[in-house]
């Protein structure tokens, strides 16, 4: 490591301008994160033009701060409203909301924040040390390995869904089916587009995600409102016993470390997003627990698992970006554009051409984590005020943001129609206890799985023996089969899925 560059970088990172830039990014991200339906990638695309007049360092740190802020902020609405601010915080709501309902909203928020910040800082440190050497390792993950990991992720996450295995299969199957809509990757011929040009790139992910997660939740909440005037949001009282304690903090540390590991691994692999990370971490925590029954009912470890992984994905997604120039997910892809606007090509060249910039960005990322901690800790009560607003005011506002967020994506009226259709689907799934999480994950994974599977089959020319030379792929294929068998056996024995994580 070039220490003179590190020194220069630190002095640039800790200036008033950078504090304002990064702090502004984190604050903006936090607010975007709190509001369900306004997503991270939307916020980044809107914010990129704002960075035209900043220095490259502040511009990039601002955008990374924004990303980090959304990951932490989304926990607030997941816990207090049961409406995750980002899809990736859906797992946080599973335990966060019940915990808040049980009169510990502040503790839940604090657990979420600390898990976020720790996951974030650790993953940033891992990024700093492995981004460059990673370039070599990442090349070991070819299509065989990616296909195997994706298949494993699909089965593993499906295993977490509530309800019967048949309902899980139905939900997953529907996700896979809808995931195949769009132009065929190789021939360019349209599949299931019914002549709609808008469907050429598939069902728009953002519409499917906002529809099944946020908008359908508003339908569910407004229905509840008819019978239950007490409302959906949890009121924050001035209860002195409601705060995180040292023993509680100590007890979640192993979970946070596991979550950070999972999040970093998932983030570093191009294509898998934070939602996969947070659900995988949640699932592993439930499995590792001595008391799996307590999850879904307000176990703080559930919040810690989801939030630490969610936040760890953000810096980890920059590992392939800085190491190889390949974005780990959508927000990282947007950053490539932001870099380019400032005349910088991201990738292995960055360290050689611009070491100071790279180290300043690393310093800026650590600074962003600390600002996030301070902002989250002291601003907790202020951000949580949104929940004091009565539901009959919140619901229309959230619906507005869902629709506006969709319009911002540029899909026009067509996007709104798709959004509302998926909201209706999500509502019915919630109502009849089909796992919308399994559906969504299957939908997100299918295009990647299809592409990698196709590549593997064509490249191997149909020869299975090639897998013997790919130990990583073989390992995940075995894991997938074991998970499938375990899932089936447990379901038929007890009539229950492996881990029961109720959707509501």
């Amino acid at each position, binding site marked *: 490591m070039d220490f003179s560059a590190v020194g220069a970088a630190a002095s640039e990172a800790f200036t008033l301008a950078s504090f304002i830039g990064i702090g502004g990014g984190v604050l903006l991200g936090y607010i975007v994160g709190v509001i369900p339906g306004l997503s991270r990638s939307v916020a980044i*695309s809107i914010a*990129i*033009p704002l960075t*035209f007049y900043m220095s490259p360092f502040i511009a990039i740190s601002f955008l990374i701060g924004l990303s980090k802020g959304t990951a932490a902020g989304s926990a607030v609405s997941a816990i207090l409203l049961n409406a995750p601010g980002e899809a990736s915080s859906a797992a946080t709501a599973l335990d966060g909301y019940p915990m808040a309902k049980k009169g510990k909203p502040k503790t839940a928020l604090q657990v979420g924040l600390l898990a976020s910040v720790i996951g974030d800082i650790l993953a940033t440190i891992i990024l700093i040390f492995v981004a460059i050497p990673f370039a070599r390792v*990442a*090349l*070991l*993950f*070819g*299509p065989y390995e990616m296909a195997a990991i994706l298949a494993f992720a699909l089965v593993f996450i499906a295993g977490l869904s509530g309800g019967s295995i048949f309902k899980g299969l139905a939900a997953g199957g529907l996700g896979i089916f809808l995931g195949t809509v769009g*132009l065929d*990757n*190789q*021939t*360019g*011929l*349209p599949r299931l587009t019914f*002549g709609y*040009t*808008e469907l*050429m*790139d598939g069902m728009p992910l953002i519409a499917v995600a906002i529809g099944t997660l946020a908008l359908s939740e508003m339908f569910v909440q407004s229905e509840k409102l008819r019978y239950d005037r007490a409302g959906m949001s949890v009121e924050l009282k001035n209860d002195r016993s409601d705060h995180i304690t040292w023993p509680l903090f100590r007890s979640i540390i192993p979970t946070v470390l596991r979550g950070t590991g999972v999040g970093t691994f998932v983030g570093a692999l*191009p294509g898998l997003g934070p939602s996969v990370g947070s659900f995988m971490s949640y699932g592993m925590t439930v499995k590792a627990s001595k008391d799996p029954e307590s999850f879904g009912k307000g176990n703080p470890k559930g919040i810690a698992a989801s939030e630490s992984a969610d936040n760890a994905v953000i810096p980890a997604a920059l590992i392939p970006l800085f190491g*190889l*120039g*390949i*974005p780990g997910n959508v927000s990282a*892809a*947007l*950053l*490539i*554009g932001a870099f*380019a*606007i400032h*005349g*910088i*090509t*991201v*990738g*292995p*060249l960055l360290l050689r051409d611009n070491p100071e910039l790279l180290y300043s960005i690393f310093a800026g990322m650590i600074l962003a984590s600390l600002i996030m901690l301070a902002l989250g800790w002291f601003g907790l009560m202020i951000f949580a005020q949104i929940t004091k607003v009565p539901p009959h005011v919140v619901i229309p506002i959230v619906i507005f943001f869902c629709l506006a967020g969709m319009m911002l994506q*540029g899909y*026009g009226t067509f996007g709104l129609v798709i959004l509302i259709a998926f909201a209706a689907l999500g509502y019915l799934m919630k109502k009849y206890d089909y796992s919308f999480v399994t559906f969504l994950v299957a939908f997100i994974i299918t*295009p990647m799985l299809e*592409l990698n599977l*196709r*590549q593997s089959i*064509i*490249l191997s*020319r149909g020869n299975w023996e090639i897998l013997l030379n790919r130990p990583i792929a073989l390992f995940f294929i075995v894991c997938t089969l074991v998970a499938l068998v375990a899932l089936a056996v447990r379901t038929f024995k007890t009539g229950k899925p492996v881990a029961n994580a109720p959707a509501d």
Partner: protein
Amino acid sequence: MNRRTLIATAAAIGATMAAPAFAQDWPTRPLTMVIGFAPGGSTDIQGRVLANVMEEFLGQPVNVVNQPGGGSAVAFTRLKNTAADGYTFLFGGTTALTFTPIITPVEYEIDDFEYLAAVALGQNAIVTSAEQPFETFDEIIAHGKENQMTYAQQTPLDEAIIRAIAEEEGLDLAIVPTGGGGGMAPLVLGREVDFAYSGGTHAQYTPTGEMVVAAFMSAERSPFYPDTPTLMELGYDYSIEDYRTVIVPQGVPDEVKARLMEAAEYASESQAFKDITEGNTFFPVVYIGQEEMEASVRRIRAATEEVMGSN
């Protein structure tokens, strides 16, 4: 309102109504530049810089709107249905017009639009990893005559061309889809495939010496790789031409088109646009006027139909 302001207002209205002053007054409100790809790609990067420079020239903000889908097919469908007032224009490559309609039913045709000015030349290349035992396109072919080989495609067009060449040369070639430049790079660098198509992603990897351009599919050599031949020069009668062009729907008033063309020409001479487009994406900056572009688009379409028809 006193009498003096009344007169001033009347004078102002008179001035706006005076037709000859029009050209200098346009535009009077912000413009929208449509990009048919998601943020982050080379079209988006070039478009955003272009928007900034055009804004400088026109004196009104130029807002960039991304309308991804179907390799710009969605954006063209929308553009066709917008008001032909010049306030909304598209910036992007021409393959959605010269190639997409051949294989996919779309709701637009070449004649629905006008091609005002091209400001950058597309860079389609065949690339391979520096760690492979071959480097030039001839060496790839020679290697392929002895061994089974793999190729990563990105569009049915480059696949059709490579398939035709493989047939001519008698290669045993397996062709895989990649889903874009981001997916192509790890396959090539990890040597999962022997060679691949690149629409511009190679600009990030050739300076490090990790990737090698074996041949260009464009009609002419790239000024950034002067020693690399084109397929045409190697004796294969195929090329993929692409122009990054400012496009408006049919029927925009002539004065407005003239202003947009002036703005595009101004941008093609601007240092900021050149720095990003040539320095970062390795696309040569040019200025090709409307007359030549209208002819080029139709000529490329006819040539592409021939290639696709022969398969």
